[in-house]
C-alpha cells in the first residue's frame, strides 16, 4: 500500500511538473483563432448548450489528463465537486480519478463574457482545441479537427505543430485507459435528463 502511495505521489509530481512547464512556455505561437469575434463558447460545456442543435456545438465535453484535475484544484481553489470523475485503473490496485466537464457538470470557469476564468491554468484539452488527438491502432497519435469550431479556417499551422509536439512529448506518460476514456467522451454529453435514455424509440 505504501509503495502504491509513493508511486502515485511520484506520478502526480511528474504530471504537475509537466503542466507547469506547458503553461509557462512562452514560445507557443498564437493560435490565430477568432474566438471572441466568432465564437459563442461552443467548445465549453456550458449551461444552455444541451438544447442546441449538434451543428452549434463544437465540443460538449472536456477531458482532463491524469492529475490535471488536482492541478487545477490546487491552482484555482475549486472543489472536486465541480468535476465529473471517472476511474481508470493502472493496475488492479492503483486507480486514477480523471476529471471531466460535460453538460451535466458544466464548466465552472466560463465567464458571462465567454472568457475563460482560468486561462493561465486551463486544461490542455481546451488549449488544444480545435485539434483533437486520438490513438491509431499502433498506438501513435493521430489528429482530427473540431469541425464546428467557427474559426477553424484561421487556425495557425505553427500553433498546430506546437500543440502536436506537446502531446507527442506527453504520450509516453498517458495510459492507454485514458485514451479509452477520451474515446468514450465522443459518445457522452453528460448525465441524461430523466426523459433521455438509450431506448432508440
Amino acid at each position, binding site marked *: 500500500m505504501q509503495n502504491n502511495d509513493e508511486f502515485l505521489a511520484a506520478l502526480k509530481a511528474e504530471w504537475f511538473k509537466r503542466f507547469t512547464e506547458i503553461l509557462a512556455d512562452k514560445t507557443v505561437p498564437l493560435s490565430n483563432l477568432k474566438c471572441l469575434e466568432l465564437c459563442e463558447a461552443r467548445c465549453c460545456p456550458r449551461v444552455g448548450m444541451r438544447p442546441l442543435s449538434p451543428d452549434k456545438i463544437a465540443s460538449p465535453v472536456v477531458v482532463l489528463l491524469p492529475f490535471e484535475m488536482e492541478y487545477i484544484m490546487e491552482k484555482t481553489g475549486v472543489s472536486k465537486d465541480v468535476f465529473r470523475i471517472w476511474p481508470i*485503473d493502472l*493496475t488492479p490496485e492503483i486507480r486514477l480519478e480523471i476529471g471531466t466537464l460535460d453538460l451535466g457538470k458544466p464548466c465552472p470557469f466560463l465567464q458571462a463574457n465567454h472568457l475563460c476564468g482560468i486561462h493561465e491554468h486551463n486544461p490542455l484539452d481546451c488549449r488544444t482545441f480545435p485539434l483533437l488527438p486520438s490513438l491509431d491502432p499502433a498506438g501513435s497519435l493521430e489528429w482530427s479537427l473540431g469541425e464546428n469550431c467557427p474559426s477553424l479556417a484561421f487556425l495557425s499551422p505553427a500553433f498546430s505543430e506546437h500543440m502536436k509536439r506537446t502531446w507527442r512529448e506527453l504520450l509516453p506518460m498517458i495510459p492507454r485507459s485514458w485514451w479509452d476514456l477520451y474515446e*468514450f467522451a465522443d*459518445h457522452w454529453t453528460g448525465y441524461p435528463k430523466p426523459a433521455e435514455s438509450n431506448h*432508440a424509440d
Partner: protein
Amino acid sequence: MPIELQRPQGASLHVVNGASPELLSVACNLFADIFPEDRRYLPYLRACAQGNHPSHPNTYDHVWLVRLGEEWAGVRIFSYIKTRSFGHGAYIGFTPQARGQGLGTWLVAETQRQLDEDAQRFGRRGSLGYLVEVERPIDAQTDEERLRDEKRLQFHRQCGGIILPVPFIEPVMIEGVDYISPSDLEDENPRPMHLVLVPSELGNNLPNLNLVDFVHGLYYDVYRLPKEHEFVKDALSYLLGGTT
C-alpha cells in the same frame, strides 16, 4: 464506425438450435476446443441454443457456427436483451488456423444485423449494439495472458468498441439457472472486466450513451442480479454516487 464487410471467401454461417442436434454437438466440441478454460459453461451454450430458455427470461439467445471451406472455424454466442435496445455478446472465438482472415469483423457485422432484426421483432426501432465483457490486461498473471487480453481488447476497439468507464465485475453465472449448479462453479470467482459497447450505426450516432441503462440491462436483465446488488452500486458509483 459501423462495419460493412464482404463475407470472407468460403465462409458461411450456421444457426444452431433445437432442430439441429448434430450442429449443437459440433458447437459444443468447437467451444470446448476454443475456450478450454470455460468448458464448464457448455450447459450455457446448450441453453442459448434453445433461443428462449426459461432460465433466460429477458434475452433472446443465438448460437452460431462459422464454417470456412470444409472446416468448422468458429463459434458465436450472443443475445438480444428483450427489455432494452441492445444485446450482449457472450462468446466469439475461432480455431487458430481460421484467425487473421477477417472472420471476426464479419461476424461482428452479422451479429449487429441480427440484433437489429431482433430489436424490430421486439418492437424497437433498432438495436444500439451490444455489450461485451473483456478481460483487463492489467489483471493478467503472465506476459502471455496479457498479450492475449490486449489482443482481445484491441479486436473490440477495431470493431468500434467503446470501453465504458464503469468499474465492472463479471458475475460467475446468471442467477438461478436450472442447468448449472453452484457446485459446478465453486472454483470460479467474479472478475473485474472491461465493459465494452460495440455500437451499431444507430448506437454510434447517439450523442449521449445511457450508462445506467447499460449497467442495469446487463446486471439485472441478463445476470438477473437482485436489485441494489453491490456490483450494480459499484459500477454506477462514479456516475450516481450511492443510488442505483
